[in-house]
């Protein structure tokens, strides 16, 4: 949360993304993802209940909200890892609801996980190669004959090495992913997702548990995704970061979208302050000092 997490060169913000007033569910000029009436309940708990939301193309959108707001659940639904009770959504204009996760990923909408999923007993390079799309050698019959796939494999290897260099992981390419630090695994997960050349990258808490020395480079990587023409949707708690790199902010609380807007304006929105304060009141003070502190910090930042 200190200032050294902020990139030195000021990122170029995309503006003028929405149409009309910046309210929950407002229309976007060029949405890449549009969701309608998406809901998911666990037992009696309505974890997600989103009437309408649009994600602007070519921009970095932050999805924020207190713990348990339903951000991860919404990610799971949109990427086919969970099935909604109701609702439908389109990606690049094509309906996606009910599509299995692997097909969603093939269409160019890839995600990372809040709890990092590096494939521990595969090397860093194998992790990367797994991300490449349309591999001939992934068919069992062609796998037997290397001449079907060795050329493509070589090309993928070159591309993987290029991405690994950018993520400063190239020296680790032959190590097991399990030997990486938590932050490096987050980097690897992101790098691996890029191997599939996605159009929408969804990052669930990419900064959580990352050593501050790596935060800087993670931020730069997210900005680079946008520079390369990708759309980014990410969940994050660190308000400094959100303010710094996000072009648009969507705020969730108790499963609903309660506010949307430009990062500077949305923080002044009473609904947002309410959302965080509401959570504050609901919980026993002192039960989880770390989370509590984080929340107080978040509220302070909202107010300043």
């Amino acid at each position, binding site marked *: 949360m200190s200032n050294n997490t902020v990139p030195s060169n000021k990122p170029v913000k995309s503006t003028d993304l929405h149409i009309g007033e910046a309210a929950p569910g407002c229309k976007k000029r060029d949405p890449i993802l549009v969701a309608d009436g998406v809901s998911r309940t666990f037992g009696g708990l309505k974890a997600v209940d989103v009437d309408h939301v649009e994600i602007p193309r070519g921009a970095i959108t932050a999805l924020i909200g207190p713990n348990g707001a339903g951000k991860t659940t919404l990610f799971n639904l949109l990427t086919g890892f969970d099935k909604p009770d109701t609702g439908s959504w389109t990606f690049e204009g094509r309906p996606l609801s009910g599509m299995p996760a692997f097909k969603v990923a093939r269409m160019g909408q890839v995600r990372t996980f809040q709890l990092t999923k590096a494939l521990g007993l595969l090397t860093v390079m194998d992790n990367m*190669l797994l991300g490449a799309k349309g591999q001939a050698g992934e068919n069992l019959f062609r796998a037997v004959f290397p001449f079907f796939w060795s050329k493509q494999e070589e090309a993928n290897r070159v591309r993987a090495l290029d991405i690994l260099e950018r993520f400063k992981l190239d020296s680790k390419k032959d190590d097991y992913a399990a030997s990486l630090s938590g932050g490096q695994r987050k980097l690897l997960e992101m790098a691996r997702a890029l191997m599939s050349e996605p159009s929408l990258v969804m990052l669930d808490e990419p900064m959580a548990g990352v050593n501050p020395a790596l935060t800087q480079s993670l931020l730069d990587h997210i900005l680079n995704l946008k520079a390369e023409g990708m759309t980014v949707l990410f969940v994050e708690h660190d308000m400094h970061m959100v303010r710094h790199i996000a072009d648009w902010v969507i705020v969730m609380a108790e499963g609903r979208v309660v506010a949307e807007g430009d990062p500077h304006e949305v923080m002044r929105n009473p609904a947002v302050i309410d959302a965080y304060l509401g959570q504050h009141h609901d919980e026993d003070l002192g039960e989880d000092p770390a989370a509590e502190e984080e929340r107080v910090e978040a509220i302070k930042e909202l107010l300043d």
Partner: protein
Amino acid sequence: MIDWGAIFSNAAVELISPTTAAYALAALGLAIHFGYTGLLNFGQAGFMALGAYGFAISTLSFGFPVWGAVLVGIGASVIFALILGIPTLRLRADYLAIVTIAAAEIVRLLFTTNTFQSFTGSANGLSGYKGGFAGLNPIPEGRYGFGPFEYNEYDWWLRIVAWSIVALACLFTWQIMRSPWGRVIKGIREDEDAVRALGKNVYSYKMQSLILGGAFGTIAGMIFVLPRAVVPSNYQTSLTFFIYAILLLGGASTILGPVIGSMVFWVLLSFFSGFIARAVEAGWIPFITSIQAGQLRFILVGVAIMLIVIFRPQGIFGNKKELAFVK
């Protein structure tokens, strides 16, 4: 006095016996399932039974040629794998374990029951199906070899075919595991959601793995019955556990592990049973009858395997480095 020469030569014979080859192939199938894909198949005995009965029944009851009988066995195992996999491979790993253990028992009981006696021979099993295989033998009649490895032409033919199949299966498995296909398979073992998120159809890959490893088990079942008769009681759950023991002994995600594991297992088993039987005869172990001695060898093999697993948990061929990261 104990005849050590006989004990050692009987043990050495197991090195290249067709039974050792059959167990090695079945264990290689399990390596694909468990070692590479992370599938808990506890029904390998069922796949082996389908191979044995598929081959024997199509030969005896329907007069199929050898290749036809082999295809029937493999076809049956593919159907078996689909029946096991379609409902369970979408669920957590433990469901496959429960379903396979039960399904293998159902298969064995179906072959044991009197209802299909005319086909299966019920509890007596089947014999007399080897003519087709023996007929393909190019080796002239006679005895060949040296020392303990002296066999007639059928026994050599059987050993050559059995170990050639094992060698081919090893080469094939080695090749696919170093291909992009194998990378997806190993990724699924590590975390299937991550692989799904990268656009791979995890369900289909798990099914391919189940079918392939099961087919290896089925062919192993055919090799297993070529030096003996088909007897349903051979296909109990304990058979699956012996194959798991061989797999862990050799190294679960290795190619040569199952082969060497099977050799070590059978040589040890033969050595212990030879030693105990003769030691009891010689009065070295006074409190044991020769019937109990037959049980004791499995206990000793169990202890030997435990020691290897404790002191070399990655198996004979496994990579120690991998073990450092096991959660």
